[in-house]
């Protein structure tokens, strides 16, 4: 068992496991963000709960950060190994004849998502860490006594360039997921009579979730 992650099959298995974890997290993140469209109060309550509940903060959050770093590092490791497997490339290579653009460019769509995560951490995560753990303010409220989360969210989406960057990043997230969703199942050996349906569901997931995030960003920009 120990040597499993030193093999090509094992590395892909590990990559798929981290992908499953991140895809589940994405749904949870989307669900909470969507609350902000329907009810500022509910969004505030949910955000405060996620931001102060110790299980989320001290168990799930470190696992999430590890999952993101692991997925990126493993992706880079696989990419480097794969590039090294063909030192001399083809003069003419017709990739479109046998595979999708998304499947051949996961590393590039992934790199854009990573850059976006840098911006997202700068926008939301670092200020949260600063407020809660450096300034020691766990109240989650403004000077007025009201919850600050919805207010901060709307403030961030005032800038049109930030909104544009977010929307563009979600397009790349969609492209990444259009291949990544079904690829993760294939990597863990799940290819059977349900695969066709799963691929359809994967495509829907890869379009609906990023589109939903785009909608939320635009909603707050125009409101």
């Amino acid at each position, binding site marked *: *068992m120990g*040597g*499993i992650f030193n*093999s*090509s*099959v*094992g*590395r*892909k*298995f590990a990559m798929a496991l981290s992908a499953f974890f991140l895809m589940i997290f994405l749904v949870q993140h989307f669900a909470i963000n969507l609350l902000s469209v329907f009810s500022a109060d509910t969004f505030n309550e949910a955000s405060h709960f996620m931001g102060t509940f110790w299980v989320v903060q001290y168990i799930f959050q470190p696992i999430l950060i590890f999952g993101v770093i692991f997925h990126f590092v493993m992706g880079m490791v*696989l990419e480097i*190994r*794969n590039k*090294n*497997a*063909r*030192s*001399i*490339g*083809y*003069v*003419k*290579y*017709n*990739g479109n*004849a*046998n*595979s*999708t653009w998304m*499947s*051949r460019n*996961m590393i590039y769509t992934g790199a854009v998502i990573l850059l976006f995560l840098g911006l997202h951490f700068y926008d939301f995560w670092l200020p949260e860490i600063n407020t809660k753990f450096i300034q020691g303010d766990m109240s989650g409220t403004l000077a007025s006594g009201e919850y600050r989360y919805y207010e901060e969210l709307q403030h961030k989406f005032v800038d049109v360039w930030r909104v544009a960057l977010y929307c563009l990043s979600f397009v790349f997230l969609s492209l990444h997921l259009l*291949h990544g969703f*079904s*690829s993760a199942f*294939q*990597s*863990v*050996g*799940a*290819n*059977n009579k349900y695969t066709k349906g799963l691929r359809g569901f994967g495509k829907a997931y890869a379009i609906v979730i990023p589109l939903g995030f785009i909608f939320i960003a635009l909603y707050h920009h125009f409101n």
Partner: protein
Amino acid sequence: MKLTLKIWRQKNADTKGKMVDYPIDGIDGDMSFLEMLDILNEDLINKGEEPVAFDHDCREGICGMCSLHINGEPHGPDKGITTCQLHMRMFKDGDTIFIEPFRANAFPVIKDLVVDRSSFDRIQHAGGFISVNTSGNTIDANAIPINKHDADEAFEAATCIGCGACVASCKNSSAMLFVAAKVSQFALLPQGKVEATERVLNMVKQMDEEGFGNCTNTGACEVECPKGISLEYIARMNREYLAASLKG
């Protein structure tokens, strides 16, 4: 048909190669691609030039020897065929055709368009076999009841001719479709169960040692495979490998 061929020429494994242009005329649509190359070589020999080296044997799509990368695809623009089954009717008068060897570090070029695919043989040696009593008490394979579905699946996997198009088409030079077919053709049958654990572990280990890349499930191998070997076999191999790893 009048064509321009751009062909990879490389004197031997130790020298650098380059693309060389060869105009060719009088090509008929009913000719096979290899017959077209035969005509080119006859012409080169008549001119006192070195003919283009390329692999071929049965010329009926069975042996898996022909290995050309034509206009950006292994075995050319047609699907479900080997290079020897490719006909010139797939091209138009005036076309330029790029002809290159299969590219992968695990398939080093020997000369021109000929590559060394012995890495596949070493993977087979690592586990692509079953133990059979040959001392006179051999059980007739037909006497062992096998589920029809499993027999069909095993047979489908066994149609892999080991041509290497999967490696050539994969952007990662992954050999997983080949290895998956070889693992599955035994794993599905009772005779192959005895060494199932060792087989998949040893064949994957050898595949990695040969320097093939990782599968990223692009599906290019399945599309370009002349025998239509399905990605389902890679998923099966992944399952076999994970189960074997847990057994230790």
